[in-house]
């Protein structure tokens, strides 16, 4: 295994990024930086590459990630969530759909460590079984939104002009659709009891936000001197976007997406509440949180567990996002 590249020198050339004072003074400084970037780029390739193979920023990032304890913990948590989503019966033996009204809102008892909800269903079983729908909705919707949003926003920000006008205004129209109206129109006709219509709907209405964020980030990143330099050197658009702009624009997208993951899981509850979300008898955290919310004064335990599970999931992804972001930021190496 090749040695990791030598630790970054705390020298200016390593990081032309934002090197210009905010007042944007002086073309001379800009030029200098451009040169520095070019030289440094070349130097690094020569120095860090034992096998004489160009090392991309992405593979550097992966190398970085594997050594980051934050990444390892979050990955383990996510793996755990995926496993119980696939095989909930591994850790629970009661049936989440069996409910005895006599136990309505009762506290914990042997075999039912988290107590019962309003309908007298076992909260523990429902929390574990709820992972499948909620985690699927959360991850898939977030991935969809992030990919579509970054693509549209990235292109709009990078090319500007007409492309920007067209894509941004389309995003504005979609952003204008109220969630409730969209839900009632698009989802009430669907009879499928899978999570996919809900995922599709969230992506459909959610992408404009990420698109705005990505567009803003790309517009900023595009101004950097090393991008201008790459352009001056005749780099193709695709190469510039992927190698220079994207890594520097990805941080805000990651931040918003990881938080959005939690809100999408909650949004699914809103849709279910409107009668257009996941169809019964699907179990999900969103539905249970929504049912528990009204009972907060009488039975807080009903809220605690599914909301706690949701927190844990979001925590895992925020940590993952942080680790990925750090790995992509050469300054921190």
């Amino acid at each position: 295994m090749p040695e990791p590249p030598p630790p970054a020198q705390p020298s200016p050339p390593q990081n032309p990024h934002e090197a210009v004072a905010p007042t944007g003074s002086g073309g001379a400084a800009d030029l200098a930086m451009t040169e520095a970037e070019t030289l440094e780029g070349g130097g690094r390739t020569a120095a860090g590459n034992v096998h004489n193979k160009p090392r991309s920023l992405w593979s550097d990032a992966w190398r970085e990630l594997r050594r980051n304890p934050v990444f390892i913990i979050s990955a383990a948590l996510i793996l755990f969530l995926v496993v119980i989503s696939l095989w909930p019966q591994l850790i629970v033996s009661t049936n989440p759909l069996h409910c005895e009204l006599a136990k309505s809102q009762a506290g914990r008892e042997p075999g039912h460590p988290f107590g019962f909800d309003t309908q007298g269903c076992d909260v523990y079983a429902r929390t574990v079984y709820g992972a499948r729908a909620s985690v699927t909705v959360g991850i898939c919707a977030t991935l969809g939104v992030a990919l579509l949003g970054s693509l549209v926003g990235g292109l709009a920000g990078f090319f500007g002009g007409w492309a920007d006008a067209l894509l941004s205004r389309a995003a504005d129209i979609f952003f204008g659709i109220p969630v409730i109206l969209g839900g009632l129109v698009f989802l009430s006709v669907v009879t499928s009891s899978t999570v996919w219509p809900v995922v599709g709907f969230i992506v459909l209405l959610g992408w404009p936000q990420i698109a705005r964020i990505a567009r803003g980030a790309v517009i900023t990143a595009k101004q950097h001197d090393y991008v201008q330099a790459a352009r001056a050197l005749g780099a193709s658009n695709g190469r510039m976007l992927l190698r220079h702009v994207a890594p520097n624009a990805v941080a805000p997208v990651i931040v918003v997406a990881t938080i959005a993951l939690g809100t999408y899981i909650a949004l699914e509850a809103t849709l279910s509440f409107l009668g257009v979300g996941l169809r019964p008898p699907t179990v999900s955290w969103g539905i249970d949180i929504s049912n528990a919310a009204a009972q907060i004064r009488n039975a807080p335990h009903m809220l605690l567990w599914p909301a706690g599970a949701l927190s844990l999931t979001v925590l895992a992804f925020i940590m993952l996002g942080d680790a990925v972001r750090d790995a992509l930021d050469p300054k921190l190496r």
Partner: protein
Amino acid sequence: MRGVTQARPQAAGRARRFACAAAVALAATGCGGGGNGGGGGDGTGILSSSWGDPQNPLEPANTNEVQGGKVLDMIFRGLKRYDPETGEAKNMLAEKIESDDSQNFTVTVKKGWKFSNGEPVTAKSFVDAWNYGAHLDNAQKNAYFFEYIEGYDEVHPEEGDPSAKTLSGLKVTGGQTFTVKLNQKFSTWPETLGYNAFAPLPKAFFDDHDAWVKKPVGNGPYQVESYQKGSVMKLRKWEDYKGPDKARNGGVDLKVYTDNNAAYTDLLSGNLDLADDIPAAQLKNVESDLGDRYINEPAGIIQTLAFPFYDKGWGEGKEKLRQGISRAIDREKITEQIYHGTRTPASDWTSPVLGEKGGYQAGICGEFCDYDPKAAKKLIDEAGGLPGGRMTLTSNVDTGSHRVWLDAACNSINNALGKDKACTVNPVGTFADYRNQIGDERMTGPFRAGWQMDYPLIQNFLQPLYYTNASSNDGKWSNKEFDKLVDEANAERDTEKAVRKFQDAEKVLAEQMPAIPLWYQNGSAGFSERLTDVKLNPFSVPVYDQIKVG
């Protein structure tokens, strides 16, 4: 796209039937408790009360939901008025209503009554109002209340334009008398006249309709002082009111709330005097919050599950299946655990507020309304099991807290059958969509039905719901024997005999089970320490004129 984390339903299609009652909840914050106290028991104190934005303009014949009805009940008095305690229809403006044949009536209106703008209330005030309400051009939603009056088809044809301006069955025969000819025998017709749609209207209504709608003028114990649509209506005691039920307070401020929980919180914090619908989620703690300032009284509302008779799986010949479903639902547990005593398990198709005399009889449903999971499973198995092995319970979920009891009913059925996915809830997003689906006969299993009475007569609980092609017969059930018994009951001049006929008709319902009676609904309310003598009438509306402030 952050959207609502969870939108609590709002009274979307608050409508005459159950949707409304359950959604009553709305009302607005208050100039309530503290500020405008006044009073001190001298009848001048002003109270604030929760309200929901009325769905229609406040014309009597156009108001078909509780919130608008609340106001009409304060500013209008009709020929009859339902006793706030017993529900009995008593003469109010009517001196007498006479008939020899249950079809031709002579109405004499009491002298000396006035509208609050000074106009006298005459026979013409009634006849003009009813003609207005019935006429198609005015598109009044309660027009059908006049359908028993002769000539209705001419002023309100099913298709095309009306061929007459007025109802031929109505004739003013003197200053204070008019005659009514019905198009069929209807012995208890006078008792329907307490309903708001039959209120008299002043000339001002016809002269300047827009101004009237902005600030309605009536003949009741209160008059409208100001009306800010969507936020507050201030009603004040009408000092010159001549009726026997003068207001015992200085007035009522009806405040529009977007949510009954907000009204309840305002009540707790002393910003509101009266919240007339306790949110379902607070029922568990309401007694500890309010003590004896919480009232919970029976109302003329029944909740049922109807069956789609146009669907082979549930219709003709499936009595056992329907009865089996009924026996699989544990009404006791649901009313106790979810409703905390604000519902009572039903054992007939009417309501206890009718009283024994009025035709309520517990137990007409017999064993078919008793929970017995074993018997239920046996009945369902004998009927060949659930159609396709599964069933759904359908309801709109934007009003009331229907979702909770639907889930509980399904769980109860599933437990009886020993399967966990046999019964599922089929939620419909909006009340409008739900009504359209019912209208298009798209139900594929039992669906939520329910009824809030228009007037406290056993007829009102049976005929509109189960008579062939009746306006609220959503399941399209049809039974010759039932229809015949209802016709006979309507023609019967002796009230006692009529009631007995209606009860015979109810026995047909028990055999056929076209709809499962679930529970009778109470009205509930909480009030501040400033108020005394707070009561709810059988329509679950507070009896405002009797409330004392101070």
